[in-house]
């Protein structure tokens, strides 16, 4: 049976445990589960939050396209991608990828690929909200992100 990824774009937090359980429960063919959680980071202590703007419709569509490509490239038994939008304070979750497979290499590579592609292709943008004085700058894309994505081509 072909694997269909679960893709969600949502305001509320996600439950890593529940999402992992959904991909393994009642199965005997999952040998490896890799989950990636991306969190809002603020080492300098200058942020009250990152505000994530997204392109409704295209965000879901593009994440589904990337997830579909992962499913074509690796023998996965399950795949889940959840990306939040809205105001997210430091320490809170932003994005979740869970990849399940019989073998660990496939699960690792699929999750890694998904994050690299998501970074450069999924229509989300981060704006800083500052401790001192309202909104700050839009977070700039990093050249390293394009390089990371290019590893898979």
């Amino acid at each position, binding site marked *: 049976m072909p694997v269909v990824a679960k893709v969600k774009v949502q305001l509320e937090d996600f439950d890593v445990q529940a999402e992992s359980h959904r991909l393994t429960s009642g199965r005997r063919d999952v040998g490896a589960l890799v989950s990636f959680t*991306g969190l809002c980071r603020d080492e300098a202590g200058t942020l009250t939050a990152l505000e*994530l*703007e*997204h*392109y409704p*419709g*295209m965000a879901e*569509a*593009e994440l589904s396209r990337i997830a579909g490509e992962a499913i074509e490239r690796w023998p996965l038994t399950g795949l889940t991608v959840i*990306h939040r939008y809205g105001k997210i304070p430091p320490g809170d979750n*932003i*994005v979740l990828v869970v990849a399940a497979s019989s073998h660990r290499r496939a699960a690792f590579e699929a999750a890694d690929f998904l*994050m690299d592609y*998501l*970074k*450069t*292709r*999924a*229509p*989300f*943008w*981060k*704006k800083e909200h500052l401790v001192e004085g309202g909104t700050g700058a*839009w*977070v*700039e*894309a990093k050249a390293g992100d394009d390089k990371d994505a290019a590893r898979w081509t």
Partner: protein
Amino acid sequence: MNIRYFAWVRERVGVEEETIDLPGNVKTVADLITHLKGIDDYHAAAFEEEDAIRVALDQVHVETDEEIGDAREAAFFPPMTGG
């Protein structure tokens, strides 16, 4: 045609979304950008750094030489920073 803007492109243009009539000489995304820049100073400022703008037609990434064809929605935005 429905035009959408996101992130700092949206802030510079000053609207999230607008509907425009495409003149007959607008065939590609690049033509559309040239047309949009002529609307007013806000649009001109938004598209000033043209290399920094990404485009989607009907919610699919395209390059600026893409033909607009039957697309009903074009979106302009900076490089993405999700994840």
